[in-house]
């Protein structure tokens, strides 16, 4: 969630000056975005030779900053630089800004695809069969369609499966009705897109 970035956060960010390399800064920025975990804090503490408690605060502050940038879609250097206090280390400020701008597009795409939603349709397969007989009519010749839908739930409930499969059978009439419905959706969508 997008918490506001506080003065204390920026103080924590200055710990990045202890990083062994620019790549190390980049790594911790990217990893903290996903989750400011304890393991990350520990590896950072080791890499930067700083106490674990400080590393934890650094990682947390980085997380807050990157999510703030993401939430408000700060996409220009000026917008991001404006967040930093006057006294902040200049080169570090530029480096952090550069890293944030580089990763923003990916982070945005990920956030949008990870958002809460109903199970998402992942795969669709179909087959058309010819029914040649049944217990009610021994000789017949009726086509029928089987559609298999694979769905993935991005936030499955505890103990629930994330991937589920449903196979439905459609008669010719049902398929026509569905296509009718889908056609109407397509028409409505083009009206919306046209606006």
């Amino acid at each position, binding site marked *: 969630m997008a918490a506001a970035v506080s003065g204390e956060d920026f103080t924590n960010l200055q710990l990045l000056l202890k990083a062994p390399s620019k790549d190390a800064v980049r790594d911790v920025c990217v990893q903290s975005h996903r989750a400011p975990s304890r393991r990350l804090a520990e590896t950072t503490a080791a890499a930067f030779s700083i106490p674990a408690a400080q590393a934890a605060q650094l990682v947390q502050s980085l997380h807050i900053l990157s999510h703030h940038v993401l939430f408000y879609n700060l996409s220009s250097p000026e917008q991001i630089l404006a967040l930093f206090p006057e006294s902040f280390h200049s080169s570090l400020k530029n480096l952090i800004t550069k890293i944030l701008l580089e990763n923003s597009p990916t982070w945005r795409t990920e956030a949008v695809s990870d958002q809460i939603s109903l199970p998402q*349709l992942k795969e669709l397969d179909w087959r058309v069969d010819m029914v040649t007989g049944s217990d009610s009519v021994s000789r017949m010749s009726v086509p029928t*369609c089987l559609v298999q839908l694979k769905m993935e739930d991005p936030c499955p409930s505890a103990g629930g499966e994330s991937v589920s499969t449903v196979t439905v059978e459609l008669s010719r009439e049902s398929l026509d009705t569905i296509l009718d419905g889908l056609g109407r959706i397509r028409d409505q969508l083009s009206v919306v897109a046209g606006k």
Partner: protein
Amino acid sequence: MQLHFTKDVLPDSVSTDFQNLNKFNEQQFHRLIEILFQFLLEPKETERFMQHLTEFAGEHGMSAGPLRNLMKSVLLVPQGALKKNLTAEQIKDDLLTLGLNEEKAAHFAQQWGEHYAALSRLAVGQTLMVNQLVDMEWKFGVTVGTSEVQKVGNVFLQLKLVVRKGNSTENVYMELTLPQFYNFLHEMERAKASMECFS
């Protein structure tokens, strides 16, 4: 006895029942056949069928019980004939073999011919379908913002499929992105084209 409508050996009572049918006059027989076909066209209406037979029995001074048993035997013929896609000719043959007189057999066969298309459709409609799709509902909209990204603008489509599972239905909910929707539409069009090859 060589019959088209069944390969099974029929109990003797069936022959007896058909011979008893001959005893009805033309008007009575026509009415019984009318009741019979009404039931065949709406096979779920067993109550109504029984009721019609009881009324008929009352009107003609006979007991309902024996009449019902007689009609149960008579039902075997059209039910078997439907399974085997018999023609009017074949059904008439079978009725004659079973002992029904020429005039009555001809009338029955004629009624069969008239109702055959509707009865076939009904039988086909009763064919087993697994997880039959009964209904589809949808809504689509635009996601304006999320907790992670303040301003978003992507279109989503939500579908609800109602699937028959045994005697009850199950709802399946899903969400599709725009490209997924177009793919879904495309695949369904291909499936329809494939089905149309067979007709």
